[in-house]
């Protein structure tokens, strides 16, 4: 059993057994396989990269090649217990619309994203005067798939403005969980559990 990425491990730990899950941007299906094998979850996935889809399907997972920006509308309302969007929000054209879709399709939604307000990112911009290239954001401005950089406080504002319920929040610094205090400065990564 290979180790899950830390944000995926947090999600895996907090999904109820036997739930129905849609993993949007599921990559090669690592989280789906863990949920299936450890929690008897009925998992479905959506992934944009053909090679990732092929890997997931060859593991026996139900994964469909598609784009979160265009292919979510086919899924019926509340057809899943959870919709999961891990490290994908910042790559979508309209993150607010995507979150609406997550909470239309899923009763609850897990969203994880890299925090653009982490102190290292801030320092990089402040001192270097260039768009930050860090461990979690390794690409340069011109070739990054991340088109909507977001901070933890930005995300909280979006949740508040959308009148969404926040049912869980977890923060990561490196591979370790870190506290809520000053998360917007100290966390590299955030995971939220939302409900409408």
């Amino acid at each position, binding site marked *: 059993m290979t180790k899950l990425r830390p944000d995926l491990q947090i999600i895996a730990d907090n999904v109820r057994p036997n739930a129905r899950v849609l993993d949007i941007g599921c990559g090669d299906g690592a989280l789906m396989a863990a949920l299936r094998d450890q929690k008897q979850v009925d998992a*479905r996935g959506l992934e944009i990269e*053909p090679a990732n*889809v*092929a890997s*997931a*399907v*060859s*593991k*026996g*997972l*139900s*994964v*469909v*090649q*598609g784009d979160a920006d265009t*292919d979510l509308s*086919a*899924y*019926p309302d509340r*057809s899943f217990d959870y919709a999961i969007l891990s490290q994908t929000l910042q790559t979508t054209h309209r993150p607010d619309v995507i979150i609406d879709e997550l909470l239309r399709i899923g009763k609850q939604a897990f969203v994880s994203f890299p925090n653009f307000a982490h102190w290292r990112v801030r320092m990089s911009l402040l001192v270097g005067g260039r768009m930050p290239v860090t461990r979690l954001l390794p690409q340069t401005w011109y070739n990054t798939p991340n088109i909507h950089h977001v901070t933890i406080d930005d995300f909280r504002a979006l949740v508040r403005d959308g009148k969404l319920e926040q049912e869980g929040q977890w923060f990561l610094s490196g591979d370790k969980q870190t506290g809520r205090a000053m998360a917007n400065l100290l966390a590299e990564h955030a995971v939220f559990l939302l409900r409408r």
Partner: protein
Amino acid sequence: MNEDDRFGLNRHVRLMGPLPLDSGAALTPVELAYETYGTLNAEASNAILICHALTMDQYVASKHPLTGKGGWWTDMVGPGKPIDTDRHFVICANVIGSCMGSSGPATINPATEKPWGMDFPVLTIADMVRAQALLLDHLGIERLHAVIGGSMGGMQAISWTALYPERVKSAVIIASAARHSAQNIAFHEVGRQAIMADPRWRGGAYYADDDPPSSGLAVARMAAHITYLSEAGLTEKFGRRLQDRDSKTFGFDADFQVESYLRHQGISFVDRFDANSYLYITRAMDYFDLAETHGGTLAHAFKGSKTRFCLISFDTDWLYPTSESRTIVHALNAAGAAASFVELSSAFGHDSFLLENPEMNRIVDGFLKAGETI
């Protein structure tokens, strides 16, 4: 099981039916030519039905009796292959309407004791599937581990899941569609008109003197063959290269390699295929629209389905483009069915599904193996 003459290569069965057809007619007897590979296990739970495309046949992994060539899908079917004849019991039957031993326009009409010709009833894809279901009854197979097909075979496979959802555990649908588009129908009509315009077609009654409309059928095949390839594939294979000559002849010989290739495709096709069968099968494909038979909503075809689906398309296939597969996937998602889908990259257009493609094999292999553990 090996003693049982229902199993093995070159099988033929005459079932009395009658088989009710979508047209309102009924077919009796129902003759089916088929092959089986591998061994049916004691629970009869390891059967895989392979559905063939328009001009293919039951010789999926064995030598074709007319061409002498090996099976048409040996990269996919055989010992240790994704459709593993060591593990699976594989069935492939010639579709009704075709010409390799199953009931079709060239077989004998019991009422006249002459070949059916154009008196053979017009068929649909669903009719072909219902005939296959009769065969499975005959073979003692209640539920398929999987039904698999590309192109028209994919139309049959998806029809299986809609007509007999309880009989299909998994379905693999490759380079196919849930309906025939206007463009697809248009190309088929060109082929049919080429056959019917051949003076030797004679309303389909050409069997008695064995003088079939070969010119018309060859042209139909040439036109269709272009649709199975891609512009990039043709360019890569032939470009504007000349055929066995240094300069253009300023005449109408096959100056270009691509012309020579197409002529060869046409000429060799008529040796193994019946023109009337070509009319009937293309018609069945044109009539295919799975949504139409489910109140206009494709998702209704999969309502409550417990079948696992795997769809594959190819990026250069303009005959059954990825958008057609995606339409099916959206309907499966809407119905809450377990669906997998991937578009693979290949230079060879629609024909890609018949060619060696390690990625396609890896996907089908993993999908089938996962189905064996549940």
